[in-house]
Every structure is written in C-alpha cells, then in structure tokens.
C-alpha cells in the first residue's frame, strides 16, 4: 500500500527533477501526470498510483507548498469531476490513453451534453437521436445548460439510439468532438444578463463508433456514473464562522446603523443562526467522511445551501436601502465560472435562484431524500413500460 510518506517522498523527488520555477507550466503538468501524481487513486500509467483517494490531498498540499502550477481545476471541473471517472470506468484502454492526460492538464476542456429542452429533471426522456451509419453514428438534436461548451474540445454526450424501447433502455453514451462539423454552440443568456451556459445544436454530427463509452443501449448506466460523481463533487466545503455571504451581510449591518429596522434585524439574526447551523452540519458531514462513514445527510446539504443562499441574497438587497434598486452590469459576458462574491447584490439575488434548479432541483432532491434515505415508496411510474417514442410530450 502506498502511504502518505511514500507520496511525500515521490513528490520530493519529482520536484527535485522538475523545478516549478524554471519548468514550463504545461511541461510540468504533463510530467506530473506521467509520474502518477495527478490523481493518485487512478491506475498507474493513467496519472495515478492505485493509491487511496484520500491521499490526493497530501500530494496537492505538497505541490501547493512548493509553489507548483496547478491545472486550474475550477476551469476544467466537468472534465475532472464527471468525464474522467466515466472514461476510467467505461472507456477502452485506447480511450483512456487518448483522453485522460490532456483532460487532466487542461489542454483539452470538456463539457457535458446531457440536459435538453424537453429533458430536465427527467433526463432519461432525452431525445437527441443517434443513428448508426457503418462505423459512425449520425447525431441530431439539441442540448442545453452546457457550461464551457464554447471552450470545450470534447463533450460527454448521451443520445437516444432506440426509440422503440422504454426510455431507460434505448440510450447510448459517446465522446463527441466539439470541433466536428454540425456542432453549433450558442450562448444562452440568463436572467442575470450574462451567459454562463450554452445551447448546443447538433445537426448531422458524425461520431465514430470508436468514441462510444459502454455498450449500445447502456447509456443510462454510464450516465449514472457521471451523475453520481457530480453529487460527490458538490459536497460541503469547510468554511469559518461568518464565511461566505452571511459575513458580508453582518459587515454591512455593523457598518450601516442607518439601515437597521426591527424586521431586518429579526431576519438577519435568524439567518445568522441558520448559516452557523448549516456550517456545523457541513463540518459534521466532513467528520463522517474522514472516519469513512459518509452520512446520508449529504443529499440534504445542497437543499439547505440553496434555501439559505436565496434567503440571504434576498435580504441583502433590502439591506442595501435605495442602492438595492441598482444593478452592477447587464452586459452579456461569457464567464468561465460563477463569481458570486465578486458581483453586486442584485446579481447574487438573481443567480441564487439557480441554486435550487442546477445539479438536481430541490424538488428532485426531496424525492431522493424521501425515497433513498427515509425509504418511502416511490411515486407510481406511468412511463416505466412505455416505449420512448410513445411517451406523451
């Protein structure tokens, strides 16, 4: 078994051979991948050392302490968090070798072509068609809510390959080249004014069968792996008391006595207590993970976070007095990531509305808690045994 000590020694040797101050950034990252120090729980030869997943933080800590360049993980979150585990699990050896290294170094950005205008919470209803043509598939349809599609080289793509069977059975999963003819990426402007996401139109896009992940018709199973990793990636993060938005609200309150009213005070103190409680619950979740007993509270945390963010951002506008009527900037931009704290209260208020929709709506999460945690019976499924093509839509 690889231990934390082994890893520290390996990082030490690596840094001795590749001085982060004098080595080119990309060269450094490629060498780090080849040394098995990219994601240590991955197999040897694919950027890892077959070590325990928890040891990754040791390696990241050592590299950060040495001032080494990182792979800008927030920019390539979909590749790291969703595409990579799926390729690792379902990809052929050739696919793994081709995709994982440039994915990890950030040379190739990945996006996710899952949701469609007609398939949101009910993702399995998706209708983007892939029709076989010799060694290729011809893909036609529309995807939506695709972050970084305009920067992406590749996408993970779920398609409908057999409309004559029930919805979960007729799907197939591919890697799609975003530079292929017929791929059209258009910004999707949100209520905040910016376009964080895109719509992706696929018109007769030819995808080689060699790009398929998993068997024909098994796309739902493959997609489950991707989505499970999304939920892991969303898990609570450590923050100090008054970290995040509640700290901004408290600071405004202390600095602007002229804005105080009894109603705002009552709501602020209540939110302060709620934010502190949510922070403690997130800490408790991390403590459970640390002793290897992840609690089912995980799925509940996102629900709590969404509600808190929405209440706090709503209060923040009221706390701003007349300035609450202003908005910082409606210009259409295409940001690489969400920057809640870097924008004004109006933006925060509007963007927080997405917190209860993205990554599983609060309603879907409540179903998950009720059914998988509390063990309550599921809703009757009217679409279970119906061919996809016959579903009402």
């Amino acid at each position: 078994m690889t231990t934390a000590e082994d890893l520290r020694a390996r990082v030490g040797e690596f840094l001795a051979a590749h001085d982060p101050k004098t080595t080119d950034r990309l060269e450094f990252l490629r060498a780090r991948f080849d040394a098995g120090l990219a994601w240590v729980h991955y197999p040897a030869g694919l950027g890892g050392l077959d070590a325990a997943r928890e040891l990754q933080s040791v390696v990241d800590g050592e590299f950060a302490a040495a001032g080494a360049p990182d792979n800008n993980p927030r920019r390539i979150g979909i590749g790291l968090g969703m595409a990579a585990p799926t390729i690792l699990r379902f990809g052929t050896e050739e696919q793994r070798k081709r995709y994982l290294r440039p994915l990890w170094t950030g040379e190739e950005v990945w996006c996710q072509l899952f949701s469609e205008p007609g398939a949101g919470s009910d993702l399995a209803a998706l209708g983007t068609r892939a029709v076989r043509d010799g060694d290729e598939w011809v893909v036609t349809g529309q995807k939506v809510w695709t972050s970084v599609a305009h920067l992406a080289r590749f996408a993970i793509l779920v398609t409908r390959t057999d409309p004559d069977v029930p919805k979960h059975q007729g799907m197939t999963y591919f890697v799609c080249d975003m530079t292929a003819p017929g791929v059209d990426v258009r910004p999707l402007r949100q209520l905040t004014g910016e376009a964080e996401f895109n719509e992706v139109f696929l018109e007769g896009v030819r995808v080689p069968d060699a790009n398929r992940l998993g068997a024909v018709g098994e796309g739902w199973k493959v997609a489950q792996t991707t989505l499970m990793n999304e939920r892991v990636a969303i898990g609570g993060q450590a923050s100090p008391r008054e970290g995040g938005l509640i700290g901004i609200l408290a600071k405004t309150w202390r600095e602007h006595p002229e804005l105080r009213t009894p109603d705002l005070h009552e709501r602020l103190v209540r939110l302060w207590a709620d934010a502190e409680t949510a922070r403690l619950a997130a800490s408790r979740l991390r403590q459970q993970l640390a002793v290897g007993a992840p609690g089912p509270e995980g799925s509940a945390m996102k629900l709590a976070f969404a509600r808190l963010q929405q209440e706090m951002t709503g209060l923040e506008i009221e706390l701003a007095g007349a300035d609450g009527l202003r908005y910082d900037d409606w210009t259409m931009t295409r940001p690489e990531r969400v920057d809640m704290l870097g924008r004004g209260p109006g933006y925060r208020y509007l963007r927080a509305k997405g917190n209860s929709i993205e990554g599983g709506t609060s309603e879907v999460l409540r179903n998950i808690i009720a059914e998988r945690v509390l063990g309550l019976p599921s809703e009757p499924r009217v679409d279970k045994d119906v061919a996809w093509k016959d579903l009402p839509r």
Partner: protein
Amino acid sequence: MSDLLYSEVEEDLRSSVRDLFADKASAASVLARTESEEPYDLKLWRTLAGELGLAGLSVPEELGGQGASAREVAVVLEELGRAVVPVPFLGSAVLATSALLACGTDESDQVLRRLATGEAIGVLAVPLTLWPGAEFPSAVKADGGVLNGRIGLVADASVADVLIVPAVTEQGHALYAVEGATVTEATSLDLTRRLADVTLDGTPGRLVAGPDRATAALERALLEGAGLLASEQLGVAQWCLDETVAYLKQRYQFGRPVGSFQALKHRLADLYLELAMARAAARNAADTLATGGDDAGIAVAVAQSSCASVAVHAAEEAVQMHGGIGMTWEHPAHLYLKRAKSDQLALGTPGRHRATLAHLANLPA
C-alpha cells in the same frame, strides 16, 4: 472545531439506555402512567441511577459520580426525549447538578454526593422558563438561613428531596439547599415532565453558595440546561420523524401507501433536513459545554434557536400526518407535541436565544 460525531462509548451508552427504555418505558406504559397516582416512574429512575449511574453521570468520581461530560449527558437526553420518559433527569442530573458543581463549596459537594448516588433527587428551584442571561430571581428572600417566598412552575419539583433555591439575602445573591418546602403540583401542558409551585414560608435552608459564587453558578446551570435541552429536543424530533415515516409506509389510502404522495414526502424530506441541521447544532453545544470553551454562549444560543423549533415542527407534522389517529389520546404523538411545545418555552424561547445571539455575535438591533 468541535467533535460533532458520537464516540463509541457514547453509542454504547445510548444502546443500553435505549434497550432499558424499550423494556421499561414503552409508549403505552408512559401514556398509562400520565393519569396514574405516580406520574413519575421512580422505579425506573432508581434503575437509571443505581444500575447505569446516570444520576451522577457528569459528577466527578471523587464525589460519587461517573466523571463523564456534557457530551454523554446529551446522549442520555436524546434517548429520554425519544421515549418521553417521566424521570427527573433534567431537574436533578442536569440543572441541580450543574448548579452545585459550579458552587464548588463543601456544602454543595455534600448535596452533590447524595444526588450523584441517587440517594436523593435534587431540583433547581427556578421557573422552567428562566433563561441564561436573565436577572437573578428575587422571589425568595433569605435571612439567617430562613427562606420566604414563592416560585412558580418548577420542573420535576414534585418528586424532589432537595431544592436548590436562589434567594436574595442582605449580603447579596445566594443559593440554598432546602428540604421541607411546600410543593403543589400544577396541571402542566407536558404530561411527562410535571411542574409544581414551591412555597417557602419560614423554611430553613443550608447555604451552598454565597454572593461570590451564586450568580455564576445559577448562570452556568441555565446555560448548560439550555444547551443540553437541545439534545432532548433532537430526540423528541427524531421519534416524531421515525414514527411518521414508519406509519406512512403502512397506511394505505387511494390504493397506495400514503407515504408515496409527494406532498407528504417533501415535507418529510424537509423535516429530515431540519433534523440533520439540529443534530449538528446540538452536538456542537454539548461538545462546547464539555470542553469548556468560551464559545459556549454562541453554541447554546444557536442550538436553542434551531432545536426548539425543529422539535415543535416535527411533533406538529407527526400529529398532522397521522391524520385522525394523531388526534387521539390513545396514540402517543400528543405526548411528544406537549413535550416539544413546553420545551420551546423552557430555559429561554428561540427568540430569546436569538436576542442573546445578536448580542454575542455583535449584530445590534
């Protein structure tokens, strides 16, 4: 950062208490007792004190206790809340014991030994609604060891052998140990924790803390009591959620389990989330009280802000989602509703605790 999990020792303690309650304090027997001659189960209390040592759980071993901390006391309170067991644990092992431990005098240690071994039941003679940060009570006056006055709505007082009475003397605040007060049981909303009015009419008392210690000792008892009550509230809420989920799985209407309707599932999911939050807050309060950090004020206020209302919400949802059966005397849900609502007023309402929090977190009105 606080340790917010349960240790193995704590889980063992929980199992032994839960097993005992399953055997000796079933919902039916607790319900039947509420209208009997003996609303408190003193036989069970003697078992808790004698066999499990719970009467002196947080008392140091040299004073006859178990030398455990607020963390273990909190776990016992979770189980007591979960079974709404009518024993004077809050009054004796939490409030009176915390006050006496904070006195630290030879006289207080003497009383503490008797409480720790279960030889006597003690009660802190304050209205159950008194909160940490409140003014020292002035209802009782003491002069030369003789006490006069009246204290309304004291929890567990009807089974107490010793009352720890806050009194005002010419020298200042004091705490007295009193035996032989007149105790009149009130008709309380909570059927499993009784309240009583205490009358002192020239009643003698032994001084356990003088002006130098009495105020701080009372404040410490109220702070610990409020912080640990959060765990009892958590236990009440947990029973309500578990019982309601179980019922909705087996209750059929419209040809399907009632628990398959989203309108109910979503409410239970929200309740589950509230409990997850409340558990973190309650554990944090217990751990902070146990480790003696100076953050206890905030930890207790946050826990009470959350847990008191979660317990009430859980009990109200339990009654509602049980439908007609939830409104009956026969079903135990009402015992939890009565406990939850009374606990919301006990040792400071959530609003009172948020007022404290506003002060401690520097969020002035």
